[in-house]
């Protein structure tokens, strides 16, 4: 069995699923307003009060995505894993270099192609993550201006509303195209992952996938595991070959109960009777 590397916890996978569903709903219900005569909008316009319900669902999904964004911020601040994600997500000069080298590889300027080792989050993922944050902020602000136009127009001239409307539309085009072109390429169409990267469902990557996209992170994980195993006696004879942690830090109550029983057994078995 190939080794697995945790990529997305169940919590993170649900965050992704939530985003995926609501983004799709927002895109469909949003563009349905802009292109009411398009063929694919007819199920909405033909339904009784379809356009009215469309508006309601769009706002509902908008609220859902904003709530998700709020939850994500809390997750990033208050969980240990989240804080580590933030640290790993910070862009650096290496990301620009990686992108540049990839481009040179792709255009056959680097011959043979250079092997590029990237960290836990590579330049593609960082770009997408920051684009998502930017897009969500822009869409949230402009969306709420459009929603609460009565309140907004108490303090601001009408043209600001028109600007918000224009931005909301063009940013939506940009975001949707970015998802289709950038995200769908890297998780679906990229020959390295085709037909699909399963991490969003299973939550882990294989060693091969890690090596291709996160070489540096793979090396770091292996090094840290070796370091952990250095303390374990048995590891010496097998060259630090154990891949599971010697000691799990966080255990469920059942595991802890089982662990207690096991420890007791060990103690009894090894008791020399002195």
């Amino acid at each position, binding site marked *: 069995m190939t080794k697995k590397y945790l990529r997305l916890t169940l919590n993170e996978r649900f965050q992704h699923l939530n985003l995926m569903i609501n983004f799709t709903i927002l895109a469909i219900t949003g563009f349905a307003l802009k292109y009411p005569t398009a063929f694919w909008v007819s199920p909405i316009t033909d339904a009784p*009060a*379809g*356009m*009215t319900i469309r508006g309601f669902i769009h706002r509902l999904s908008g609220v859902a995505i904003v709530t998700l964004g709020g939850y994500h911020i809390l997750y990033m601040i208050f969980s240990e894993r989240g804080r580590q994600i933030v640290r790993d997500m910070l862009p650096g000069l290496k990301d620009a270099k990686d992108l540049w080298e990839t481009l040179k590889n792709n255009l056959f300027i680097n011959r043979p192609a250079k092997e590029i080792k990237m960290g836990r989050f590579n330049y593609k993922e960082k770009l997408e993550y920051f684009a998502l944050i930017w897009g969500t902020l822009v869409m949230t602000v402009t969306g709420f201006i459009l929603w609460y136009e009565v309140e907004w127009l108490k303090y601001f*001239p009408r043209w600001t509303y028109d600007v918000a409307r224009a931005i909301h539309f063009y940013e939506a085009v940009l975001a949707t*195209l970015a998802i289709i072109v950038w995200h769908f390429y890297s998780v679906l169409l990229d020959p390295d992952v085709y037909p699909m990267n399963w991490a969003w469902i299973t939550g882990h990557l294989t060693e091969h996938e890690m090596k291709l996209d996160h070489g540096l992170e793979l090396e770091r994980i292996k090094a840290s595991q070796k370091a952990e195993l250095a303390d374990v006696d048995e590891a010496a004879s097998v060259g630090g070959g154990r891949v599971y942690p010697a000691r799990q830090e966080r255990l469920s109550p059942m595991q802890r109960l089982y662990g207690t029983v096991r420890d007791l057994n060990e103690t009894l078995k090894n008791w020399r009777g002195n």
Partner: protein
Amino acid sequence: MRPFLFLGIFLLLVTPIGSSVVWGGNNGACFSCHKDDSLSKQDARGKKVSIFVAEKEYESSIHGRLSCSDCHTQIRDDSHAAGGKAIDRRVNCASCHQGAEKEYKMGLHSKMIMKGTERAAYCQDCHGKHGIRPSKDPKSLTHLSNIARTCSRCHSDKEFVRQHAMGAGPSPGDLFKGSIHEKTGEVSCTSCHGSHNLRSLIDPKSTIFHSNIPQTCGACHPQITEQFVNSIHGVLAARGRSDSPTCTTCHGIHGIKTKADPDSPVNERRIAMTTCPQCHAAERISKEYGFSKVKSYYDSFHGLAYRGGDTFSANCASCHGVHDIRPSSDPKSMIHKDNLQKTCGACHPGASANFGKGKIHSVASISGEDFGEKVVGWVRVIYLFLIVAVIGGMIFFNFADWLRKTIERRP
């Protein structure tokens, strides 16, 4: 029919030729021949014309007590019966009905007769001949419930319509069927067109002359007409601008339906799709009067939602009014700057005074007149550039990536 035919011939044979009859007073003498339903004569063109008169029908008519010769004034001697001479070409109703004749002579039908049109309506074409009943009688040809049918005898006749170049579409009578006016049973052709003095569309005195239509409809809808004549449309129509709409421009003509009917041009689903745009999106009229707001409406939130079928969304009439549409410069206008807060507030409760300020029908353009239009125009240009650059870059990058990986995997 055959027995009657024989009877007719028999009667003709037994009629005493040369006998002296007093023509007048006693209709029996006339009916002795004319009760034969096969009795006919040939007109000037050699066409067979029935000269049968139903006695009972005549006697139950309003003229039933009159003698035949009261109308057929020139049939006075026995030579009529002897030779069957058709010397009395036309009955003169005006000998009694002077007023009606006076009106009739001003109307279109009499003018058409004077022009030589063959089938222009004369008294008997609408009122009937021997069976004339008063208009109040439900059996009368000119009873309100029968008028549409009476007029349709000519005006829904395809040959007649073709000969008189009245257009190829459905006839007015067909359109009128199913209209709200027909359903009420209180309105028929003559209610709008007039009866004896019915005039041509191009006659400025006509009830259906462009600028007279509001008054014609106002006979039944006085409050609406009062609103309309003070609206910009009414004022311009009264000045004789043929471009300016009147009632029929929006509501339709013969087939007027209630606004709840989806086929009605004033149905809320059609107002902003076809009814107002028929002029306000028309090239010629837009240029002449300097308006072209329909496109900006279609691109606005209101217009987009409306086009998608959202009936909560504002259409033209929601802001501009219906019959009392006035220019924004008019203090009574719904879109006058002092009234906008109230107008917008009808759908946007709590709308501030600031809500209605600024250009509503704005069109994003970097060369726009309005500051907001310019800003939105620039936002658009910047975003389009951004979209092309970013998405184009992504496509380029990913395609190159795909190409390399695919080439690397070649067998």
